[in-house]
């Protein structure tokens, strides 16, 4: 593939029917109302020269290069800021326009370094292009006048430079930061000739609010803002379209390469999840794929205390197959199992669950989604009939009220957060329910109408109080409920009980009753209200109850089944949705169908040629328990560092140490591989060939930009293990795996690689009823028929603060790092988060004599760790917070075995702890930490 360049129409598309007819250079074009002359011309195949306009941004009209003549109008208006009117006649090329444009270009070039031939973006610079387009041959002013040529370069960002000498003050970067990213980090400083770009209060990019999303770099028409990798490696020569492997937004990217080397990742404009935007992880943090730490050859050892021995693939695979069979022979068929990873492709996950079900002959397969979004699966299935979010991301553009619960989108789902912020700037209202004052609560041009600052662990009490207000204040959408739902009357009686009133639960949640009432009225009174939620909902002992509570609230107010509404899980890892869809739960075959369903099992039995078990298998926590009691002895772990990411580390390592065989398939040796007997090197997303499914059920292609560095695809290794166990399992390529998924799973029956190549992406269900996929679910009826109201009792967690452990610890993630950090820690992103910090309220710190930057011990009843403190009034009193990106912190050393009652999703969000001063910070580090 050559370098892909999307067409730039100059100004954004306008919604609506194309009803306005204009004539441009003799060609007639029909466009929607509000479309600029520039865009209409581009749609007619006529490119008008431009510099300050680009179609991701609203027009600004500063460069005056895009002038046109319009019949009946005086002067030559800028085509980017002039909307089409019916019957308009436009000329884009006249001798007078050519002269005007040359004059404009001459001024720009006179103040621009003339080092085009040695400039890193030579050939990819709009200024250079435009000089050619307008036929500029010489500059009459000379180059000796006042200029900016000696301005310094800002290289503070690890990934891009700002070379002020090349800036043409077009303000595309400023507008990209405002309009696309919503961070407002940049300003145009000075006037006229002295105009230049400033980050923050005139400091460097790193000192400013910049979050390194790359939108400004993308928008810059010159080499002023430039990826450093382009400077170092040269301009890329070809592109491969693929999907980011970090978070559940699932952004589409062009991997731009020179030879086989990735020069940069550029967000793809036609990617439906991101529409050309990106965050620092997907845009820049791909270097881990070629990090020298990567283990590329299989490793083996008899005992976990032995040193590793590098072996050939055949030896490793045969050993795993043989040992698995031996262990089953000694300890029974159910003594072995596997864990799939949400970081792997659908095809890789499908292969693992097939190996477990067909070759291992049991249902002991679970996924790391167990520890994040399993309550979503349970809760949405009980109420709506399927385990998935109801909307596409685009739907938020129609939302009038956005209720964000237990999610921190600006850090964990940044590109979607930018869409949310854009909608909020357009006037939608925001309600945030979170113990922490997350960035969304108050950021440039955004302020939440209500921040319901509840105590961790009291979500259900809060959502019940909101539902109580809905039913007792006459806010129920009776028509919707009568037509579309069932079990409402019982639920209404339950929720109307006085114990659910905001006043009654105020003491539990800590949220003032009047605030709950006002927020509920806002939500219920909106034309379209949508709920977005994250792990702050699911990772609780009542996670599933809370998911059902939100589902109830949305149904009771009729906020389901159209654009702008719904209940939407923001998935953590890139393929959480997909790994769940692919049958990696121990009770469900692909497509969320229970293993006890004879008809479904027979589909797979016929195809796979094996009898399948009809009883559910072990979940991850059950596997650990069974390992400790001796009935579970061997585990295949696909791409997940369970020791670092699962709760109560001591319990996990005890379980792994008790097993006869632990096989880890991963990119890097990690905490889990310390307990492994076999290490099978995995592939990075740049080598994978398959699909990821994002949080909006969108199936995106992951295309390889290089062959597997390990010599094998992960699914191939899985097939070979199955073969070594005597089960014939073989595919020629991953497209065949998707074909098998489509053949066996009705919601995927219309999906194939060919289809994805043709249409870009589809959202499941994609089948004969919906050949192009399903952006919004439950439109005329719920997947289960009627939406079901479920009574959601608030049962407090057993994890309570006590005199010994008076604080509540809650955990989360930050923008620049990703999960256990195995990838991001091996990139320049460490510039932003070199260590995990413990955030605590000034009051809690003061009473413990702790100051900013001090090292403290963090103790729960199961373990202890130490880390440095960041004092922050974002935290409520009594609650401390940390991330789990670095293994040295071992945040999960302190988290407990408590879990969601329905799914065993661990309660990461509530651990009773105490904090004590360990080492005061050296005096000089205090100011640096205190920003």
């Amino acid at each position, binding site marked *: 593939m050559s370098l892909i360049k999307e067409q730039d129409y100059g100004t954004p598309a306008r919604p609506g029917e194309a009803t306005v007819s204009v004539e441009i250079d003799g060609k007639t074009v029909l466009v929607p109302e509000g479309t600029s002359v520039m865009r209409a011309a581009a749609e007619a195949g006529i490119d008008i020269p431009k510099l300050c306009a680009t179609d991701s941004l609203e027009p600004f009209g500063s460069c005056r290069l895009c002038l046109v003549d319009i019949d009946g109008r005086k002067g030559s208006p800028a085509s980017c800021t002039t909307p089409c009117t019916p019957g308009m006649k436009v000329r884009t090329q006249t001798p007078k326009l050519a002269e005007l444009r040359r004059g404009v270009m001459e001024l720009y070039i006179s103040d621009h370094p003339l080092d085009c031939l040695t400039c890193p973006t030579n050939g990819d610079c709009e200024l250079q292009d435009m000089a050619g387009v307008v036929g500029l041959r010489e500059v009459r002013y000379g180059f000796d006048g006042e200029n900016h040529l000696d301005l310094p370069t800002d290289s503070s960002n690890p990934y891009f430079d700002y070379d002020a000498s090349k800036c043409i003050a077009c303000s595309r970067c400023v507008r990209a930061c405002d309009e696309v990213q919503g961070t407002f980090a940049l300003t145009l400083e000075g006037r006229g000739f002295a105009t230049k770009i400033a980050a923050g209060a005139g400091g460097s990019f790193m000192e400013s609010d910049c979050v390194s999303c790359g939108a400004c770099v993308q928008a810059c028409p010159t080499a002023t803002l430039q990826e450093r990798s382009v400077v170092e490696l040269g301009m890329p020569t070809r592109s491969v379209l693929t999907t980011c492997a970090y978070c559940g937004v699932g952004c589409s990217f062009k991997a731009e390469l020179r030879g086989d080397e990735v020069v940069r990742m550029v967000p793809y404009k036609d990617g439906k999840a991101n529409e050309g935007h990106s965050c620092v992880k997907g845009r820049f943090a791909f270097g881990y794929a070629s990090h020298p730490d990567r283990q590329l050859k299989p490793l083996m050892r008899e005992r976990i205390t032995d040193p590793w021995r590098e072996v050939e693939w055949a030896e490793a695979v045969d050993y795993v197959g043989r040992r698995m069979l031996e262990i089953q022979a000694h300890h029974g068929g159910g003594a072995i199992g596997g864990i799939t990873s949400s970081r792997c492709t659908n095809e890789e996950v499908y292969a693992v669950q097939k190996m477990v079900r067909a070759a291992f002959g049991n249902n002991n397969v679970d996924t790391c989604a167990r520890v994040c979004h399993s309550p979503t699966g349970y809760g949405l299935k009980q109420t709506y009939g399927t385990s998935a979010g109801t909307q596409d991301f685009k739907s938020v553009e129609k939302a009038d009220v956005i209720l964000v619960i237990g999610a921190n989108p600006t850090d964990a789902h940044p590109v979607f957060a930018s869409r949310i912020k854009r909608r909020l700037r357009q006037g939608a209202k925001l309600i945030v329910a979170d113990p922490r004052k997350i960035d969304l609560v108050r950021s440039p041009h955004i302020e939440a109408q209500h921040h319901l600052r509840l105590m961790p662990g009291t979500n259900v009490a809060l959502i019940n109080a909101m539902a109580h207000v809905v039913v007792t204040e006459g806010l129920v959408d009776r028509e919707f409920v009568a037509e579309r739902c069932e079990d409402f009357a019982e639920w209404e009686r339950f929720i109307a009980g006085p114990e659910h009133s905001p006043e009654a639960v105020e003491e539990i949640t800590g949220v003032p009753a009047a605030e709950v009432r006002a927020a509920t009225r806002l939500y219920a009174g909106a034309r379209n209200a949508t709920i977005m939620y994250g792990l702050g909902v699911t990772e609780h002992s009542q996670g599933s109850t809370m998911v059902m509570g939100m589902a109830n609230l949305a149904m009771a107010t009729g906020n389901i089944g159209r654009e702008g509404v719904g209940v939407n899980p923001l998935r953590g890892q890139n393929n959480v949705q997909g790994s769940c869809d692919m049958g990696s739960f121990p009770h469900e075959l692909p497509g969320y169908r229970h293993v006890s369903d004879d008809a479904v099992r027979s589909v797979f039995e016929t195809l796979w040629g094996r009898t399948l078990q009809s009883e559910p298998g072990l979940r991850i926590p059950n596997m650990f328990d069974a390992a400790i009691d001796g009935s579970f002895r061997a585990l295949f772990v696909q791409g997940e560092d369970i020791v670092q990411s699962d709760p109560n580390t001591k319990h996990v390592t005890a379980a792994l140490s008790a097993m006869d065989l632990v096989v880890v398939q991963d990119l890097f040796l990690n905490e889990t591989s310390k307990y492994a007997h076999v290490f099978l090197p995995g592939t990075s997303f740049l080598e994978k060939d398959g699909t990821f499914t994002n949080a909006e059920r969108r199936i995106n292609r992951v295309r390889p930009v290089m062959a597997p560095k390990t010599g094998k695809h992960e699914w191939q290794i899985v097939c070979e293990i199955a073969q070594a166990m005597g089960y014939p399992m073989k595919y020629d390529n991953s497209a065949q795996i998707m074909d098998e998924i489509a053949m066996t799973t009705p919601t995927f029956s219309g999906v194939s690689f060919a289809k994805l190549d043709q249409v870009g992406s589809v959202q499941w269900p994609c089948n004969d009823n919906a050949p192009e996929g399903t952006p919004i679910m439950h439109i005329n009826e719920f997947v289960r028929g009627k939406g079901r109201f479920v009574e959601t009792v608030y049962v407090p967690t057993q994890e309570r603060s006590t005199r010994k452990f008076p604080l509540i610890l809650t955990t989360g993630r930050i923008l620049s790092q990703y999960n256990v950090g195995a990838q991001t820690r091996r990139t320049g992103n460490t510039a932003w988060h070199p260590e995990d910090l413990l955030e605590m309220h000034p009051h809690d710190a003061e009473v413990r004599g702790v100051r900013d930057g001090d090292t403290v011990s963090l103790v729960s009843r199961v373990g202890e760790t130490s880390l440095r403190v960041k004092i922050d009034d974002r935290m409520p009193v009594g609650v401390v917070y940390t991330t789990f990106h670095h293994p040295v912190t071992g945040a999960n050393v302190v988290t407990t075995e408590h879990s969601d*009652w329905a799914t065993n999703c661990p309660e990461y969000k509530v651990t009773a702890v105490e904090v004590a001063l360990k080492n005061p910070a050296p005096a000089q580090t205090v100011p640096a930490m205190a920003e």
Partner: protein
Amino acid sequence: MTSTHTPPHIRLANEIAAQFQQRDPAAASREIADHIRTFWDPRMRSKLIADAGRTGSGLDPLAVAAAALLPRPTGT
């Protein structure tokens, strides 16, 4: 209060039972049994059934009632 030393199947069964306390006991035990049949591996169900018959197991009465409704898994 259950603690780390409570066997997992008892802790988990009690956590499920806690969600159904306000319901009519007959319906609650049916729902708990359904839930356990749908999600629990047979070896855990066997342990639960075995412990439900013991006095002093620490099991919530609703969980005991639910266990009585569970068929004994085969092959474990």
